[in-house]
């Protein structure tokens, strides 16, 4: 802890004496606005701070160090050209309050990125504003709500498959909809009859993830969308798994009316600790009047040339984010789209799907595969084959850390008991996949020969197995110095 390294009086800066007289804070502020002691900030020299954070960085797992097979999260490599371009002073040093006339380059980038995302997804319009996928969902469902209300309809339900990400029901509930869970078939996908049975005039929308969280393509998607549309509902597409479809299929062509994109997944902008995310939303024309404001618009005819910010959307759902959203991510995503181009995007999806199926083929014999079909971009295993050993999914995940891997997503999707959800992404070479398979095989063998070694993992990390239960039941949210006795 930086606090523990603190020594009174040590500093990491050196400033000249002020050339104006000192003022007494008590004369300038009311008593209740004055502190009578320092807030206990750590006191260190610059080199101590640099060493501390550099050391911490060497203890991190990172996609730049190895495979990060986090299912549903598409932890692909972040190309360094994106970083170079996002740091161009015209973007990095721009002020969010610059008037449009002085931000033409940035506005043009937004305009072009919106159109590129629309092209990739088969949507008509895109807003870049939402800060992450979940806020994109919120925006999309807000637009669906506005659409129905505009038509004088008060629908109260949203359908969500039982394999959905937890954000789907949350987004619906935040918009005051009641959520109806639709069971997947035994083949892991949604069936038209299950949707038809739930599709009443009360249903505002179906939210669907395609490919779904089992990594399976929803083959009935077109028919399902027709069923929902025929009863006046709309279809929301959760774009978390778009990586599998790039350049191959467009959600808009399959019947999706509104969807979000995770720039930090599909479009390679940093993710997790490297954030922030960005969750643009694409809509078909019928939802365009409800887009968040402001909308970037290209000037036409007598207006001259260039770009401006348009607030004239009387039916807009409003503003979702200060200024533009997480703007530096737009530059990175644009750089990615332009460096890959249409053929590169398609190749990316093909490689992601090939990698996932290669892993599944290599792991199938040794691990239980709950729904064993060709997958798209990710595959789901379970701990069922280890039942007799007492080793669980959580133990396997912890042991993978000893082998140098960030664990995959575990215990999700909820419809698979003891799920391990593995997404290799297109970034990983075949040798890297082989090494990962070898690690999982070694762990399966250990589970049978020395189960305690797996159950007590990790052993090679700075800290052993943490007590996650106690951390959740009795959280300690703030470091507090130990006060000497009697103080």
């Amino acid at each position, binding site marked *: 802890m930086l606090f523990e390294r603190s020594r009174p009086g040590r500093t990491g800066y050196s400033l000249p004496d002020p050339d104006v007289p000192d003022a007494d804070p008590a004369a300038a502020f009311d008593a209740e606005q004055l502190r009578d002691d320092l807030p206990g900030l750590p006191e260190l020299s610059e080199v101590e701070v640099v060493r501390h954070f550099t050391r911490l960085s060497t203890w991190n797992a990172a996609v730049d160090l190895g495979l990060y097979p986090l299912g549903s999260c598409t932890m692909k490599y972040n190309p360094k050209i994106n970083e170079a371009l996002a740091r161009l002073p015209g973007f990095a040093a721009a002020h969010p309050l610059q008037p449009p006339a002085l931000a033409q380059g940035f506005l043009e980038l937004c305009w072009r990125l919106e159109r590129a995302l629309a092209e990739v997804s088969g949507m008509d319009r895109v807003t870049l504003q939402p800060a992450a996928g979940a806020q994109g969902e919120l925006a999309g469902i807000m637009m669906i709500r506005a659409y129905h209300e505009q038509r004088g309809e008060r629908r109260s339900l949203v359908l969500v498959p039982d394999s959905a990400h*937890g954000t789907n029901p949350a987004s619906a509930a935040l918009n005051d909809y009641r959520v109806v869970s639709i069971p997947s078939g035994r083949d892991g996908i949604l069936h038209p009859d299950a949707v038809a049975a739930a599709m009443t005039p009360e249903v505002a929308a179906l939210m669907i993830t395609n490919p779904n969280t089992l990594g399976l393509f929803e083959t009935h998607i077109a028919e399902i969308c027709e069923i929902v549309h025929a009863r006046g509902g709309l279809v929301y597409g959760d774009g978390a798994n778009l990586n599998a479809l790039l350049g191959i299929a467009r959600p808009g062509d399959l019947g999706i009316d509104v969807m979000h994109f995770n720039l930090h997944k599909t479009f390679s902008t940093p993710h997790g600790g490297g954030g922030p995310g960005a969750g643009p939303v694409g809509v078909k024309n019928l939802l365009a009047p409800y887009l968040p404001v402001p909308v970037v618009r290209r000037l036409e005819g007598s207006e001259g040339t260039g770009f401006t910010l348009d607030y004239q959307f009387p039916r807009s759902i409003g503003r979702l984010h200060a200024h533009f959203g997480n703007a530096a991510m737009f530059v990175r995503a644009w750089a990615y789209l332009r460096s890959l181009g249409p053929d590169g995007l398609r190749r990316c999806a093909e490689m992601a799907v090939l990698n996932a199926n290669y892993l599944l083929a290599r792991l199938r014999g040794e691990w239980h595969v709950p729904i064993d079909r060709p997958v798209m971009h990710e595959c789901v295993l379970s701990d069922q084959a280890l039942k007799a050993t007492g080793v669980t999914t*959580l133990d396997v995940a912890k042991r993978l850390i000893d082998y140098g891997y960030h664990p995959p997503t*575990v*215990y*999700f999707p*909820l419809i698979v*008991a003891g799920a391990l959800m593995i997404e290799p992404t297109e970034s990983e070479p075949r040798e890297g996949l082989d090494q990962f398979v070898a690690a999982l095989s070694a762990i399966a063998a250990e589970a049978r020969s020395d189960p305690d070694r797996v159950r007590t993992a990790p052993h090679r990390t700075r800290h052993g197995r943490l007590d*996650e*239960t106690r951390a*959740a*039941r009795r959280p300690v949210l703030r470091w507090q110095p130990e006060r000497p006795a009697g103080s």
Partner: protein
Amino acid sequence: MADYEIPADLRYTREDEWARVEGERVTIGVTDYAQQQLGDIVNVELPAVGTAVERGEPFGVIESVKAVSDLYAPVTGEVVEANADLANHPEHVNEDCYGDGWMLSIRVADAAEIETLISAAEYRRHVEDRSTE
């Protein structure tokens, strides 16, 4: 199959809740199978006394280190008592799901509904069916 405690004197639902019927008062909680599947419970959200609950509809939320799940009302009625201890001691659900881990007492609106709850033998079959999938 793992060993699950399924007391013979209770009634059950297919959503893994148990119900102890005492006249028009039904006390409910989650079964041993449910708490083992969920793993360590870290939070339970229950409705206040006086809340109306509807059979088959979510009345609260149970959170474990693995996942968050809805809790479904086995019967329709009014909450007459809720286990306030679970807010500070969610571990009671793991340690004693049929005792200290109880969740709600409900005054049943229609006594005939109790007959829709399944027996211990039928619930055991339901658990076994899922364990062998």
